């Protein structure tokens, strides 16, 4: 390796600047690469797999630290060579890893059934790990060189990362997702130039850099064309892939931005009528044809875009669930909470005297306002004289407006993902929280109606039960003394949609008559209405049957429920008049194996072998066997019995409105309301049941996002343990033998790693509340946190000599701030949400600043002291532990948030910093003198 001399901060000022700049650029490239990979996964497959791959790839930092730790003397001696080589390798590895990974796309929906898919996922992880390893070796080598003034280099690292993140987000406007890796490549190239310019012998390195740069560009742009291979392989199972296969498909609009990769396709094969009543088939003269475009964001969708329909064609609106509020409100002033593709708005315009619609995604509004094709197709809907447009989150608008509306409509907002395979990421749904519902109810005029429609395609029901609980909780908040049973009406169509109406002041008898008639005409099922009577005898069987349908009759919780007084379907008398047949009766009674001797009878635990020809052998009885010959014999005039999901919906409403001994906590899945603290429809599996999901993962495919978090956490925890253990096993008595207090040092850096990332991830989720958009929130948070922490790191140098006295105060301040934020942040963010947008951004920065600034101190102070005390091995190891526990923390956040709420995440982070305080002093324990060899 060349021994060229590099200028360091101790040398000339200009070179010192270049040195820090190079570090900042590489740190920026690393974070830009992280975000790029996540975007690539979002568009090509599903975002949560991207998060998993990136999280685990970040383990590269831990791995690097272990390697460097094991040979720290060698690395200290050859630090510059290591930095040069790893820097040169970083760019080519970005291109190669991405291109090869795109040739082995794994498919989420076959992850259980096809073992090859797991290897493909592993291959993606290993490939994307490689550039991070290169980046980590570069930064590790530089950190080691600068260990005595770590605060400065850490400042460059953090500020560079913050700026890199912001740059990438800006570049989302410029590049399509498949070309996003150009951004980290550009940062890498710039870093290389700056780095080698700072060196005295630089011509050879610069030449190599230029050659590699050209190869990278050719590898990314030219090679895939020559080999006819994709730069970004979009899964065949993404919504947009289907549109692309329609014979007459045509992409009529495309736009890349931080708000998603937006595409609009036209095809005569696109049909939208979400939740359409089956009766439309017999009563409508015609359905609109060639009436739709399909809108896709990051390949997810379609969101229907409807053309301006003729009077004859709009007759079909009557059969859509979003018509419900207009059944009882004539010519209302209407607010549509989310524009989406515009179907709800179109229905509202047809039935209202005036409509206000909100849309939080500026690029959707931009498309409908500025693209001639879309404007023409949609009849320039956004310029309709009856329509006002709010260009930010409808939830925020309604929470703060003095205006009142006769109808507020939330129809299938944000819910395209509810029906897509492999989707179901843990996403905050602030439009559906208790606080949001309260805001909608508050903005209703007297006698106004809030109408919420949600997909009802889950069996057992999940999302809809959470919605019901949320709306009732909000109504109770709004008026604790009201008789809520008079204010709610709900109807659903089995495996289609559910609609809840809340009327401020309660429904009149006339309203209910109209709603009864409409629901009957649509053949929907009523779940509740004023005066609805639910037969509570069905409760125990219903709850028990649903639990057993997932976990089986032997389930411990079912037994516990039975012990707690819930009658067992098989042990107790069956409730009469219910259609629910408890599945404790064996539905799988084996028929006699005709090829086997009477072996079954030898097994006393086996159900008796049944004669398949004898009806009596079917324990559910011949008439209850739906697949038998009589399965389809239907009496034309007989009213069909309600399906179990309908009974469950009725039970839920009864429980929520009246109680009367019904308790939804016994239901197989989590039905707690969504709140701003816990805004998730996903994560419906109760944590206590998680261990019972592992042998039946195929039935939890709609919970992938959540289960993957546990998988990520498990893998990260094992990886972190191994990374911690390797130096322990190899060097506890050698490398670290002269460094006392190892355990406390591990604890210290683990707490910092966990605490920092948990605050960052939790606040990204929280800041969506006032900012209304996850992309903007992520930009503000990533930049704000890293830059302010960088400043904290730089400032910590001034207190380095007094660290033992100042750091305990810093830790207490961080802990107190974070715990306090956990308690008060929701009302503060609500208040910020009322301000003009620019002021909101400023306030968010100001809110981040105090904890982020202080959180810059602990890492740089401890690392600097490890460096000053020449604890090189510990210095590198600590850095790795910090990185590894960051990965664990990132996976922990949504797991804690879904169970306990985002506030708890902040408070746990605060506690982590408080725990770190006493451990901090282990840093200063003096090195033991080397034992003399005997």
């Amino acid at each position, binding site marked *: 390796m060349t021994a060229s001399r590099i200028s360091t901060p101790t040398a000339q000022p200009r070179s010192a600047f270049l040195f820090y700049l190079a570090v900042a650029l590489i740190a920026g490239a690393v974070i830009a690469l992280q975000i790029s990979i996540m975007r690539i996964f979002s568009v090509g497959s599903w975002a949560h797999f991207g998060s998993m791959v990136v999280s685990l790839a970040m383990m590269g930092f831990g791995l690097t630290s272990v390697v460097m730790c094991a040979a720290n003397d060698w690395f200290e001696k050859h630090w510059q060579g290591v930095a040069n080589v790893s820097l040169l390798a970083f760019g080519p590895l970005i291109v190669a890893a991405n291109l090869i990974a795109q040739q082995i796309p794994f498919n989420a929906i*076959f992850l259980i059934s*096809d073992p090859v898919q797991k290897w493909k996922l592993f291959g993606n992880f290993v490939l994307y790990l490689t550039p991070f390893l290169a980046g980590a070796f570069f930064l590790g080598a530089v950190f080691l060189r600068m260990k005595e003034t770590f605060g400065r280099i850490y400042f460059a690292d953090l500020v560079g990362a913050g700026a890199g993140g912001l740059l990438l987000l800006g570049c989302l406007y410029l590049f399509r997702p498949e070309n996003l890796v150009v951004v980290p490549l550009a940062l890498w190239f710039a870093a290389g130039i700056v780095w080698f310019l700072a060196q005295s012998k630089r011509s050879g390195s610069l030449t190599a850099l230029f050659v590699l740069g050209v190869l990278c560009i050719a590898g990314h742009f030219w090679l895939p064309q020559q080999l006819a291979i994709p730069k970004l392989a979009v899964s*065949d199972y993404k919504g947009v892939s289907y549109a692309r296969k329609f014979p007459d498909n045509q992409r009529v609009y495309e736009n890349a931005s931080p708000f998603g990769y937006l595409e609009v396709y036209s095809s005569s094969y696109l049909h939208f009528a979400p939740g359409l009543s089956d009766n439309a088939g017999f009563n409508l003269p015609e359905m609109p044809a060639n009436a739709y475009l399909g809108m896709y964001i990051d390949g997810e969708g379609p969101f229907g875009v409807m053309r301006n329909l003729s009077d004859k064609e709009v007759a079909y609106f009557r059969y859509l669930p979003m018509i419900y509020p207009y059944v009882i409100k004539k010519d209302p002033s209407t607010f549509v909470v989310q524009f989406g593709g515009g179907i709800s708005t179109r229905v509202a315009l047809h039935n209202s005297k005036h409509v206000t619609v909100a849309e939080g995604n500026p690029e959707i509004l931009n498309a409908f306002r500025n693209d001639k094709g879309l404007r023409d197709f949609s009849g320039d809907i956004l310029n309709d004289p009856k329509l006002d447009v709010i260009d930010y989150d409808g939830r925020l608008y309604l929470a703060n407006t003095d205006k009142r509306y006769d109808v507020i409509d939330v129809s299938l907002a944000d819910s395209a993902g509810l029906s897509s395979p492999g989707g179901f990421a843990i996403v905050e749904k602030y439009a559906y929280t208790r606080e949001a519902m309260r805001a909608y109810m508050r903005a209703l005029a007297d006698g106004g109606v809030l109408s919420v429609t949600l997909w009802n395609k889950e069996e057992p029901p999940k999302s809809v039960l959470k919605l019901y609980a949320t709306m009732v909780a909000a109504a109770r908040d709004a008026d604790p003394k009201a008789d809520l049973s008079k204010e709610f009406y709900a109807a659903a169509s089995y495996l289609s949609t559910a609609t809840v109406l809340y009327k401020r002041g309660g429904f009149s008898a006339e309203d209910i008559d109209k709603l009864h008639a409409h629901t009957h005409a649509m053949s929907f099922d009523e779940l509740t209405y004023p005066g609805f009577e639910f037969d509570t005898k069905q409760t125990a069987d219903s709850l028990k049957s649903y639990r057993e349908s997932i976990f089986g009759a032997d389930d411990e919780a079912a037994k516990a429920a039975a012990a707690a007084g819930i009658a067992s379907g098989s042990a107790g008398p069956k409730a009469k008049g219910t259609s629910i047949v*408890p599945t*404790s009766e064996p539905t799988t009674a084996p028929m006699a194996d005709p090829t086997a001797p009477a*072996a079954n009878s030898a097994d006393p635990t086996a159900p008796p072998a049944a004669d398949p020809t004898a009806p009596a052998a079917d324990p559910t009885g011949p008439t*209850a066997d739906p697949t038998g010959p009589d399965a389809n014999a239907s009496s*034309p005039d007989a009213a069909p019995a309600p399906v179990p999901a309908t009974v469950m919906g009725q039970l839920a409403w009864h429980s929520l409105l009246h109680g009367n001994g019904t308790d939804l906590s016994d239901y197989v899945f989590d039905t707690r309301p969504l709140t701003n603290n816990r805004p998730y429809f996903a994560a419906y599996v109760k944590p206590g049941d998680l261990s019972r999901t592992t042998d039946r993962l195929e039935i939890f495919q709609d919970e992938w996002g959540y289960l993957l978090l546990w998988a990520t956490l498990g893998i990260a925890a094992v990886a972190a343990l191994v990374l911690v253990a390797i130096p322990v096993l190899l060097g506890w008595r050698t490398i670290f033998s002269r460094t006392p207090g190892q355990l406390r040092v591990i604890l210290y850096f683990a707490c910092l790693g966990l605490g920092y990332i948990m605050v960052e991830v939790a606040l990204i989720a929280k800041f969506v509340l006032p900012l209304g958009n996850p992309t903007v929130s992520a930009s503000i948070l990533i930049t704000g946190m890293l830059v302010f922490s960088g400043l904290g790191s730089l400032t910590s140098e001034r207190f380095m000599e007094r660290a033992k006295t100042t750091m305990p105060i810093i830790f207490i301040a961080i802990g107190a701030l974070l715990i306090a934020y956990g308690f008060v942040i929701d009302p503060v963010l609500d208040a910020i949400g009322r301000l003009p947008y620019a002021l909101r951004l400023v306030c968010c920065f100001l809110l981040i600043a105090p904890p982020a600034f202080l959180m810059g101190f602990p890492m740089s102070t401890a690392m600097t002291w490890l460096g000053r005390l020449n604890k090189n091995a510990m210095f590198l190891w600590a850095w790795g532990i910090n990185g590894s526990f960051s990965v664990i923390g990132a996976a922990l956040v949504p797991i804690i948030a879904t169970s306990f709420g985002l506030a708890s995440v902040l408070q746990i982070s605060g506690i982590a910093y408080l725990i770190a305080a006493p451990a901090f002093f282990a840093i200063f324990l003096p090195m033991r003198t080397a034992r003399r060899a005997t």
Partner: protein
Amino acid sequence: MDRRQFVLGSITALAAAPVANLARASISGADSKVPVPFAWDVKVPIDSREEFVAWAVKNRGEDPKFLTQRWNRMYAMVQNKDLTDERNKRAFLLTPREDFCRPVNRAHAYDSAFLDIGFGVTISGPHAVGRMTQVLNVQTGEKVLEIGTGSGYQSAFLSHLTDKCYSIEIIKPLAERTRSVYDELIGDGYNEFKSITTKQADGYYGWEENGPFDKIVVTCGIDHIPPPLLKQLKPNGVMVIPVGPPGAQRVLKVIKHQGQNGDITVSRSDIFNKVVPFVPFTKLVDGEIKGAHNGDAKDTK
């Protein structure tokens, strides 16, 4: 079934392989034919695997390895009540599922899982297909419309129950590929597949010139039931639609009721209209039921 019997059965099946190869080569080999063409009164030995394999090798010229797997899967489906009558069991046993899977997945043709067939489409698992077909309760001579031909397996299954199957596929290259699979199999002597009429079109509008239909099966994702399909369904006809993500799908059953006064109403239900465990809840290992997810079915020996 005990282990000895299983081993013996497997040896018998393997020994029969050369015979099968002589009788009929794979789907790509056009020179060999099904020895005995399908007839509506065909008697298929259902109750014994060995007898079935021997019969099918002789009469259908199929690979005993797949025949063994097919019978084993049928056994599991019967355990789960996905198949409950002789006609549907027979139809399952007569349908060479392996010929409708992609070559890379052929070895897994009789696994319980759904499999990728390209174009973002899967061939549903045998339990799901069996359950849907059973609930349709197709009678000979009834007209059945399938929306979403996909692999072609569903209609192939149906063609052993009725001689009037119509199937529409929206994805042109898939429609063409599956048509060629049918044509090759017909060339091999599977005459029953001649009763499957296919076309590439938008299934949303049904197939009016061939309607009305007694039964309709819809296997494509859509946010509502297309009104034209309900119109083309005969009074008291049945439609089944799988809903939900693959693996956790529920089968929606839609019945078009016609009252005595001529009024038409539509009812929706789960095919069982009761809470039942998800399928597949039996695990088949080497032809034996090993464990059950719902906890009440025991291992069979």
